[in-house]
C-alpha cells in the first residue's frame, strides 16, 4: 500500500491537474499547447503476484447510491474464507491494507437497499441524500461533492477513479460518459473489468504513458460529442494524421498501442479507451 501511495505521489507531476485555461503561443503558424500527462499506474497491484483485487488507496471512498449495494454484496466474495460481516466492517491486515467501508454514500437513494444504507450508516458512513435533485445523475452528485464539499481532501492533484462505470444499463453508461465530459477540467477515469476510459480535452496535447503490464494493446479514440476535423496521434498501429473523425464515418476503434508512449492532439474532446489485461 505504501509503495502504491509513493508511486502516485512520485508521479504527482504527471498527475498535475492542468490549469483551467490553455496557453497558446501562435508563432509562424505553430500553436503550442500545454502538455497533459496520463498514466494508469493506479492499476498496478500493490504487491507483485498479488491475486486479490488491487486495492486502490484513495483519500476518499464514495458510493453512488446503488453502488453501495454492490460493495456490500460483492466484497465478501473476494474473501470467502472470512466472515462477510468482518470483511464489510474491518481494516484488513496482513497482505492487504485498506477499508471496504465507504466514507460517503451520495445520490437520490432510489437504488440503495434499506438494510445496506442502515449498515453503512451504523459504521459512520456519511449519507448525503440528494433525492430532491432529479436533474443530475448519482455520479454527477458524487463528483460535485468531491469538488465542492469534501473537506480535508488534497485537491491539488486530484484524480477520481470510478469503478463499475460501464456495463449494465446503457443509459447509465452514457450518463457516466457525460459526467466526464461535463467535468472536463477534472481527471476522472472510468473503469470496467475490460476497459479504462478518460477524456482528452481539446485544449491540451496529450502524452499517455502506457503501463504495458496491466493495459493494452487494444485502444480507441472516440469523438463522442462532436465531430473532429483534425486529430493527430503517434504511438498507435493506425496513427491519425490531421484525420477527420465522426460518428457515421471514421472512429478510431480496434486500434493497437505500439509504443509505451502515445501522443494525441485534436480539435475536439476525445475519449481515450484502452483495454485492461486480465490477471
Amino acid at each position, binding site marked *: 500500500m505504501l509503495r502504491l501511495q509513493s508511486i502516485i505521489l512520485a508521479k504527482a507531476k504527471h498527475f498535475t491537474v492542468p490549469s483551467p485555461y490553455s496557453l497558446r503561443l501562435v508563432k509562424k503558424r505553430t500553436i503550442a499547447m500545454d502538455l497533459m500527462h496520463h498514466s494508469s499506474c493506479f492499476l498496478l497491484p500493490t504487491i507483485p503476484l498479488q491475486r486479490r483485487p488491487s486495492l486502490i488507496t484513495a483519500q476518499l471512498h464514495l458510493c453512488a447510491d446503488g453502488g453501495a449495494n454492490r460493495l456490500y454484496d460483492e466484497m465478501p466474495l473476494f474473501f470467502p474464507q472470512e466472515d462477510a460481516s468482518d470483511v464489510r466492517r474491518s481494516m484488513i491486515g496482513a497482505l492487504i491494507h485498506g477499508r471496504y467501508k465507504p466514507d460517503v454514500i451520495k445520490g437520490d437513494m432510489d437504488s440503495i437497499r434499506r438494510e445496506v444504507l442502515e449498515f453503512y450508516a451504523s459504521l459512520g458512513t456519511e449519507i448525503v441524500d440528494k433525492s430532491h435533485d*432529479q436533474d443530475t*445523475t448519482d455520479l454527477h452528485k458524487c463528483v460535485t461533492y468531491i469538488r465542492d464539499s469534501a473537506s480535508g481532501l488534497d485537491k491539488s492533484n486530484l484524480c477520481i477513479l470510478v469503478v463499475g462505470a*460501464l*456495463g*449494465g*444499463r*446503457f*443509459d*447509465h453508461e*452514457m*450518463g457516466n*460518459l*457525460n459526467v466526464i*465530459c*461535463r467535468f*472536463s477540467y477534472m481527471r476522472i477515469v472510468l473503469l*470496467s473489468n*475490460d*476497459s479504462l*476510459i478518460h477524456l482528452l480535452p481539446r485544449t491540451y496535447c496529450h502524452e499517455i504513458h502506457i503501463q504495458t503490464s496491466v493495459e493494452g494493446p*487494444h*485502444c*480507441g479514440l*472516440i*469523438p*463522442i*460529442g*462532436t*465531430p473532429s476535423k483534425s486529430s493527430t496521434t503517434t504511438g498507435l498501429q*493506425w496513427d491519425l494524421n490531421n484525420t477527420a473523425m*465522426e*460518428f*457515421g*464515418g471514421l*472512429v478510431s*476503434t*480496434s*486500434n493497437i498501442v505500439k509504443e509505451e508512449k502515445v501522443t494525441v492532439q485534436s480539435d475536439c*474532446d476525445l*475519449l481515450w*479507451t484502452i*483495454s485492461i489485461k486480465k490477471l
Partner: protein
Amino acid sequence: MDSIRKEVLDFYRSLGTKIIDKSHDQDTTDLHKCITYIWDFAPDANKSTLCILVAGALGGRYDHEMGNLNVLYCFSSLRIVLLSDDSLIYLLPRTHHHEIHIQTCVEGPHCGLIPIGAPSGSSTTTGLRWNLNNTEMRFGGLISSSNIVVGEKVTVQSDTDLLWTISIKKL
C-alpha cells in the same frame, strides 16, 4: 478471422456454414463487414423491411462497443438493433418523426435519448417522465439518461440522429 478459434471455425465449416475471410480489410469492423454482407445479400424487395438484431453488442472492450454504435450511424438507413442483457439500442434518424411502441412486458421503464457524435439543437418527445420540448442536448451538457417511459407510446423528433435506449426486463 483474428478472433475465431480454429476448432470453432472448422466445426461450423463442417456443418456447411459459409466462411468469408475479410482479413485484408482492416478499415472496417467485423460487424460492419457483416452488415455489408446482409445488405448486399438481401433481395431488393426485402430491404425496406429488413431488421438486423445484433446480440452481444455491448459490454466487453469499450472500443468494440463504440465501433458497434458507429455501425448504426454508418448504416442509418437500415434498422439495426443492438442488444445486451440489460439494454436495447437503435438509431432514430433525424430525417423522420418517430413513434416507439413500448412492449411493457419485456422492456422499460428506464430509457434514454443520446446525441452521440453531434449535439442536438432541438429535440422534442412525448411519453416520457421528463419530456424534451425543443430542448438542446449535447455531451458536456444535457443528455436524456435515466428517463422513464410513461405509457405505451413514445414519440421523438430531433434535428440530429439520436440513439434510443431502453432497459430490458429480467425474465
